[in-house]
Protein backbone atom coordinates (compact mmCIF):
# COMPACT_ATOMS: atom_id res chain seq x y z
CA UNK A 1 0.00 0.00 0.00
CA UNK A 2 1.17 3.47 -0.81
CA UNK A 3 0.73 6.63 1.20
CA UNK A 4 -0.87 9.64 -0.47
CA UNK A 5 2.55 11.19 -0.57
CA UNK A 6 4.02 8.20 -2.40
CA UNK A 7 1.17 8.11 -4.90
CA UNK A 8 1.82 11.74 -5.62
CA UNK A 9 5.58 11.30 -5.79
CA UNK A 10 5.37 8.45 -8.29
CA UNK A 11 2.33 9.75 -10.20
CA UNK A 12 4.11 10.28 -13.51
CA UNK A 13 5.64 6.82 -13.59
CA UNK A 14 2.52 5.07 -12.30
CA UNK A 15 1.11 6.40 -15.58
CA UNK A 16 3.68 4.17 -17.26
CA UNK A 17 3.61 0.92 -15.31
CA UNK A 18 0.67 1.23 -12.94
CA UNK A 19 0.52 0.86 -9.17
CA UNK A 20 1.40 -2.77 -9.68
CA UNK A 21 4.71 -1.81 -11.27
CA UNK A 22 5.34 0.71 -8.54
CA UNK A 23 4.68 -1.99 -5.94
CA UNK A 24 7.24 -4.21 -7.61
CA UNK A 25 9.77 -1.40 -7.26
CA UNK A 26 8.82 -0.86 -3.63
CA UNK A 27 9.12 -4.57 -2.81
CA UNK A 28 12.51 -4.83 -4.50
CA UNK A 29 15.94 -4.95 -2.90
CA UNK A 30 18.79 -3.95 -5.20
CA UNK A 31 22.48 -4.24 -4.38
CA UNK A 32 24.77 -1.56 -5.82
CA UNK A 33 28.46 -2.47 -5.74
CA UNK A 34 30.25 0.85 -5.51
CA UNK A 35 29.32 4.46 -4.72
CA UNK A 36 31.60 6.03 -7.34
CA UNK A 37 31.14 7.11 -10.95
CA UNK A 38 28.52 4.54 -11.92
CA UNK A 39 27.17 3.99 -8.40
CA UNK A 40 26.28 7.68 -8.06
CA UNK A 41 23.77 8.03 -10.92
CA UNK A 42 22.53 4.45 -10.47
CA UNK A 43 21.73 4.93 -6.79
CA UNK A 44 20.21 8.39 -7.29
CA UNK A 45 17.82 7.21 -9.99
CA UNK A 46 16.91 3.95 -8.26
CA UNK A 47 16.16 5.97 -5.12
CA UNK A 48 13.92 8.47 -6.86
CA UNK A 49 12.19 5.67 -8.80
CA UNK A 50 11.16 4.22 -5.44
CA UNK A 51 13.15 0.98 -5.23
CA UNK A 52 12.16 -0.02 -1.68
CA UNK A 53 15.52 -1.21 -0.39
CA UNK A 54 18.91 -0.21 -1.74
CA UNK A 55 22.11 -1.68 -0.39
CA UNK A 56 25.17 0.26 -1.49
CA UNK A 57 28.70 -0.77 -0.61
CA UNK A 58 31.95 1.15 -0.92
CA UNK A 59 35.22 1.27 1.01
CA UNK A 60 36.56 4.66 -0.05
CA UNK A 61 36.66 8.19 1.25
CA UNK A 62 35.56 11.11 -0.93
CA UNK A 63 38.53 12.67 -2.70
CA UNK A 64 38.62 15.96 -4.60
CA UNK A 65 39.55 14.06 -7.78
CA UNK A 66 36.29 12.03 -7.54
CA UNK A 67 34.08 15.06 -7.96
CA UNK A 68 34.14 15.33 -11.76
CA UNK A 69 31.90 12.29 -11.97
CA UNK A 70 30.77 10.99 -8.57
CA UNK A 71 27.72 13.21 -8.28
CA UNK A 72 26.51 11.68 -5.02
CA UNK A 73 29.36 13.48 -3.29
CA UNK A 74 29.77 17.22 -2.90
CA UNK A 75 32.75 19.43 -2.29
CA UNK A 76 31.83 19.62 1.40
CA UNK A 77 32.06 15.79 1.63
CA UNK A 78 35.78 15.60 0.86
CA UNK A 79 37.36 13.39 3.51
CA UNK A 80 34.07 11.74 4.51
CA UNK A 81 33.30 8.09 3.92
CA UNK A 82 31.50 7.74 0.58
CA UNK A 83 28.94 5.57 2.25
CA UNK A 84 27.97 8.26 4.77
CA UNK A 85 27.70 10.82 2.01
CA UNK A 86 25.62 8.36 -0.06
CA UNK A 87 23.26 7.63 2.83
CA UNK A 88 22.64 11.35 3.45
CA UNK A 89 21.94 12.19 -0.18
CA UNK A 90 19.80 9.17 -0.99
CA UNK A 91 17.70 9.55 2.16
CA UNK A 92 17.23 13.24 1.40
CA UNK A 93 16.16 12.41 -2.16
CA UNK A 94 13.62 9.84 -1.02
CA UNK A 95 12.82 9.35 2.69
CA UNK A 96 10.28 6.62 1.87
CA UNK A 97 12.87 3.98 0.99
CA UNK A 98 15.42 2.02 3.01
CA UNK A 99 19.11 2.68 2.36
CA UNK A 100 21.65 0.19 3.67
CA UNK A 101 24.95 1.95 3.18
CA UNK A 102 27.83 -0.36 4.05
CA UNK A 103 31.47 0.61 4.42
CA UNK A 104 33.33 -2.46 3.19
CA UNK A 105 35.76 -3.76 0.61
CA UNK A 106 33.99 -6.46 -1.36
CA UNK A 107 36.08 -9.63 -1.36
CA UNK A 108 35.67 -13.36 -1.68
CA UNK A 109 35.00 -13.82 2.04
CA UNK A 110 32.19 -11.28 2.39
CA UNK A 111 30.58 -10.91 -1.04
CA UNK A 112 27.74 -13.42 -0.49
CA UNK A 113 26.88 -11.95 2.92
CA UNK A 114 26.88 -8.39 1.60
CA UNK A 115 24.58 -9.24 -1.31
CA UNK A 116 22.33 -11.10 1.13
CA UNK A 117 18.75 -11.46 -0.11
CA UNK A 118 19.01 -8.71 -2.76
CA UNK A 119 17.06 -9.50 -5.91
CA UNK A 120 19.59 -7.96 -8.29
CA UNK A 121 23.16 -6.68 -8.41
CA UNK A 122 24.28 -3.52 -10.17
CA UNK A 123 27.92 -3.59 -11.20
CA UNK A 124 29.34 -0.17 -10.38
CA UNK A 125 32.84 -1.45 -9.70
CA UNK A 126 36.09 -0.27 -11.23
CA UNK A 127 37.86 -3.62 -11.51
CA UNK A 128 37.22 -7.07 -12.96
CA UNK A 129 38.36 -9.29 -10.07
CA UNK A 130 35.51 -7.86 -7.94
CA UNK A 131 33.12 -7.95 -10.88
CA UNK A 132 33.84 -11.66 -11.32
CA UNK A 133 33.07 -12.28 -7.62
CA UNK A 134 29.72 -10.48 -7.99
CA UNK A 135 29.03 -12.37 -11.21
CA UNK A 136 29.51 -15.65 -9.35
CA UNK A 137 27.15 -14.63 -6.55
CA UNK A 138 24.54 -13.59 -9.13
CA UNK A 139 24.81 -17.04 -10.73
CA UNK A 140 24.63 -18.81 -7.35
CA UNK A 141 21.65 -16.75 -6.13
CA UNK A 142 20.00 -16.84 -9.57
CA UNK A 143 19.56 -13.06 -9.65
CA UNK A 144 20.26 -10.59 -12.48
CA UNK A 145 23.58 -8.82 -12.80
CA UNK A 146 23.52 -5.42 -14.48
CA UNK A 147 27.00 -4.85 -15.89
CA UNK A 148 28.48 -1.49 -16.81
CA UNK A 149 32.03 -0.21 -17.31
CA UNK A 150 33.56 3.03 -18.57
CA UNK A 151 36.81 4.60 -19.74
CA UNK A 152 37.17 8.08 -21.14
CA UNK A 153 34.26 8.70 -23.50
CA UNK A 154 33.71 4.95 -23.94
CA UNK A 155 31.42 2.60 -22.10
CA UNK A 156 29.75 -0.77 -22.25
CA UNK A 157 26.75 -2.40 -20.60
CA UNK A 158 24.83 -5.65 -20.64
CA UNK A 159 22.20 -7.42 -18.56
CA UNK A 160 23.01 -10.88 -17.33
CA UNK A 161 20.23 -13.26 -16.36
CA UNK A 162 21.76 -16.45 -14.94
CA UNK A 163 21.01 -19.62 -16.93
CA UNK A 164 19.40 -17.60 -19.74
CA UNK A 165 22.24 -15.38 -20.93
CA UNK A 166 26.01 -15.50 -21.04
CA UNK A 167 27.59 -14.45 -17.76
CA UNK A 168 30.20 -11.71 -17.40
CA UNK A 169 33.01 -14.22 -17.57
CA UNK A 170 31.61 -15.68 -20.84
CA UNK A 171 31.58 -12.20 -22.37
CA UNK A 172 34.83 -10.85 -20.94
CA UNK A 173 36.96 -13.80 -19.87
CA UNK A 174 40.13 -11.72 -19.42
CA UNK A 175 40.28 -8.40 -17.66
CA UNK A 176 42.02 -5.49 -19.36
CA UNK A 177 45.11 -4.33 -17.47
CA UNK A 178 44.56 -2.35 -14.29
CA UNK A 179 45.13 1.40 -14.66
CA UNK A 180 44.13 4.79 -13.35
CA UNK A 181 41.55 5.28 -16.06
CA UNK A 182 40.73 8.63 -17.63
CA UNK A 183 37.02 9.44 -17.47
CA UNK A 184 34.53 12.23 -17.92
CA UNK A 185 31.44 12.37 -15.72
CA UNK A 186 28.98 12.22 -18.60
CA UNK A 187 30.17 8.74 -19.58
CA UNK A 188 29.45 7.46 -16.08
CA UNK A 189 26.04 9.14 -16.23
CA UNK A 190 25.21 7.65 -19.59
CA UNK A 191 26.25 4.07 -18.85
CA UNK A 192 24.78 4.29 -15.32
CA UNK A 193 21.46 5.31 -16.87
CA UNK A 194 21.47 2.31 -19.17
CA UNK A 195 22.06 0.04 -16.18
CA UNK A 196 19.34 1.78 -14.18
CA UNK A 197 16.87 1.63 -17.06
CA UNK A 198 17.51 -2.11 -17.15
CA UNK A 199 16.86 -2.48 -13.41
CA UNK A 200 13.59 -0.54 -13.63
CA UNK A 201 12.42 -2.57 -16.64
CA UNK A 202 13.42 -5.84 -15.00
CA UNK A 203 11.57 -5.00 -11.78
CA UNK A 204 8.43 -3.66 -13.45
CA UNK A 205 8.53 -6.42 -16.09
CA UNK A 206 8.36 -3.91 -18.90
CA UNK A 207 10.11 -3.88 -22.28
CA UNK A 208 13.00 -5.89 -23.66
CA UNK A 209 16.13 -6.28 -21.61
CA UNK A 210 19.69 -5.72 -22.83
CA UNK A 211 20.33 -9.46 -22.72
CA UNK A 212 22.62 -11.49 -24.99
CA UNK A 213 23.93 -8.18 -26.30
CA UNK A 214 26.85 -6.04 -25.25
CA UNK A 215 26.01 -2.37 -25.73
CA UNK A 216 29.06 -0.32 -26.61
CA UNK A 217 29.05 3.46 -26.43
CA UNK A 218 31.54 5.66 -28.23
CA UNK A 219 30.99 9.18 -26.96
CA UNK A 220 33.70 10.57 -29.24
CA UNK A 221 31.61 9.58 -32.25
CA UNK A 222 28.23 9.78 -30.49
CA UNK A 223 27.67 6.28 -31.81
CA UNK A 224 26.59 3.07 -30.20
CA UNK A 225 27.03 -0.52 -31.27
CA UNK A 226 25.69 -3.81 -30.12
CA UNK A 227 27.60 -7.01 -30.18
CA UNK A 228 25.76 -10.32 -29.91
CA UNK A 229 27.23 -12.36 -27.09
CA UNK A 230 26.89 -16.07 -26.45
CA UNK A 231 27.31 -18.45 -23.56
CA UNK A 232 30.68 -20.12 -23.38
CA UNK A 233 30.00 -23.80 -22.58
CA UNK A 234 33.45 -24.06 -21.01
CA UNK A 235 33.09 -20.85 -18.97
CA UNK A 236 34.78 -21.21 -15.60
CA UNK A 237 31.92 -19.35 -13.85
CA UNK A 238 28.69 -20.63 -15.46
CA UNK A 239 29.68 -23.38 -17.90
CA UNK A 240 30.12 -27.10 -17.55
CA UNK A 241 33.72 -26.54 -16.47
CA UNK A 242 32.50 -24.61 -13.43
CA UNK A 243 34.81 -24.56 -10.44
CA UNK A 244 34.45 -27.51 -8.10
CA UNK A 245 32.27 -29.55 -10.46
Amino acid at each position, binding site marked *: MFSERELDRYKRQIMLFGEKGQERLKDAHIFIA*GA*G*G*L*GSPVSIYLAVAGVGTITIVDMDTVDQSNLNRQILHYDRDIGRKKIESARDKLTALNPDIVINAIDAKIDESNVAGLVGDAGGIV*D*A*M*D*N*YPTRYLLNEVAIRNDIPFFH*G*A*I*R*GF*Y*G*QATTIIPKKTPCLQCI*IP*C*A*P*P*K*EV*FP*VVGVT*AGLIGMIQTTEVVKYLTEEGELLTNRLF*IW*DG*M*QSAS*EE*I*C*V*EKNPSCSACGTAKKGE
Partner: protein
Amino acid sequence: MSVKVRFFARFRELLGTNIIVEPASGAMLADVIKEIAARKKEGHDAIFDDQGIFREFVIIMKNGRRIETEDAGKTPVADGDEIAVFPPVAGG
Protein backbone atom coordinates in the same frame (compact mmCIF):
# COMPACT_ATOMS: atom_id res chain seq x y z
CA MET B 1 37.83 -10.57 -51.83
CA SER B 2 36.79 -7.58 -49.73
CA VAL B 3 36.64 -7.56 -45.93
CA LYS B 4 35.58 -4.73 -43.61
CA VAL B 5 37.37 -4.24 -40.31
CA ARG B 6 35.90 -2.07 -37.57
CA PHE B 7 37.95 -1.00 -34.59
CA PHE B 8 36.35 0.41 -31.45
CA ALA B 9 37.29 2.83 -28.68
CA ARG B 10 41.03 3.15 -28.15
CA PHE B 11 41.73 0.84 -31.09
CA ARG B 12 39.69 3.16 -33.35
CA GLU B 13 41.59 6.19 -32.09
CA LEU B 14 44.86 4.53 -33.03
CA LEU B 15 43.95 2.73 -36.24
CA GLY B 16 40.75 4.24 -37.63
CA THR B 17 37.65 2.25 -38.42
CA ASN B 18 35.52 0.85 -41.24
CA ILE B 19 38.69 -0.15 -43.04
CA ILE B 20 38.14 -2.10 -46.23
CA VAL B 21 40.94 -4.50 -47.11
CA GLU B 22 41.38 -7.03 -49.87
CA PRO B 23 43.16 -10.00 -48.38
CA ALA B 24 44.57 -12.78 -50.53
CA SER B 25 42.54 -15.92 -50.82
CA GLY B 26 43.18 -18.22 -47.86
CA ALA B 27 44.05 -15.33 -45.51
CA MET B 28 43.26 -15.87 -41.86
CA LEU B 29 41.46 -13.46 -39.54
CA ALA B 30 44.60 -12.80 -37.51
CA ASP B 31 46.55 -11.93 -40.69
CA VAL B 32 43.98 -9.33 -41.70
CA ILE B 33 44.01 -7.60 -38.32
CA LYS B 34 47.78 -7.79 -38.06
CA GLU B 35 48.25 -6.24 -41.50
CA ILE B 36 46.13 -3.21 -40.61
CA ALA B 37 47.64 -2.89 -37.14
CA ALA B 38 51.13 -2.88 -38.68
CA ARG B 39 50.34 0.53 -40.16
CA LYS B 40 50.84 2.15 -36.76
CA LYS B 41 53.13 0.82 -34.06
CA GLU B 42 51.04 2.17 -31.19
CA GLY B 43 47.94 0.54 -32.62
CA HIS B 44 49.75 -2.74 -33.12
CA ASP B 45 51.10 -2.68 -29.58
CA ALA B 46 47.66 -2.00 -28.15
CA ILE B 47 46.32 -5.18 -29.73
CA PHE B 48 49.36 -7.49 -29.82
CA ASP B 49 52.07 -8.30 -27.29
CA ASP B 50 55.85 -8.42 -27.93
CA GLN B 51 55.51 -11.89 -29.41
CA GLY B 52 52.85 -10.69 -31.88
CA ILE B 53 50.16 -12.60 -30.01
CA PHE B 54 46.77 -11.02 -29.35
CA ARG B 55 46.61 -9.43 -25.92
CA GLU B 56 44.34 -11.64 -23.84
CA PHE B 57 41.57 -9.07 -23.26
CA VAL B 58 41.06 -8.24 -26.97
CA ILE B 59 37.62 -9.21 -28.27
CA ILE B 60 37.16 -10.16 -31.92
CA MET B 61 33.86 -10.66 -33.67
CA LYS B 62 33.32 -11.94 -37.21
CA ASN B 63 29.90 -11.19 -38.67
CA GLY B 64 28.52 -10.66 -35.17
CA ARG B 65 29.94 -13.88 -33.72
CA ARG B 66 32.76 -14.06 -31.24
CA ILE B 67 36.02 -15.61 -32.42
CA GLU B 68 38.47 -16.52 -29.66
CA THR B 69 41.76 -14.72 -30.23
CA GLU B 70 43.59 -18.05 -30.09
CA ASP B 71 41.46 -19.28 -33.02
CA ALA B 72 41.95 -16.15 -35.14
CA GLY B 73 45.09 -17.60 -36.73
CA LYS B 74 43.16 -20.58 -38.10
CA THR B 75 39.89 -18.85 -38.98
CA PRO B 76 39.76 -17.98 -42.69
CA VAL B 77 38.06 -14.82 -43.89
CA ALA B 78 35.63 -14.71 -46.80
CA ASP B 79 34.39 -12.02 -49.15
CA GLY B 80 31.96 -9.65 -47.41
CA ASP B 81 33.05 -10.56 -43.89
CA GLU B 82 32.75 -7.83 -41.28
CA ILE B 83 35.27 -7.98 -38.47
CA ALA B 84 35.02 -6.03 -35.22
CA VAL B 85 37.92 -5.64 -32.79
CA PHE B 86 37.49 -3.98 -29.43
CA PRO B 87 38.95 -3.59 -25.97
CA PRO B 88 36.58 -4.03 -23.02
CA VAL B 89 36.75 -1.13 -20.57
CA ALA B 90 37.14 -1.53 -16.83
CA GLY B 91 36.37 1.71 -15.02
CA GLY B 92 33.36 2.49 -12.90
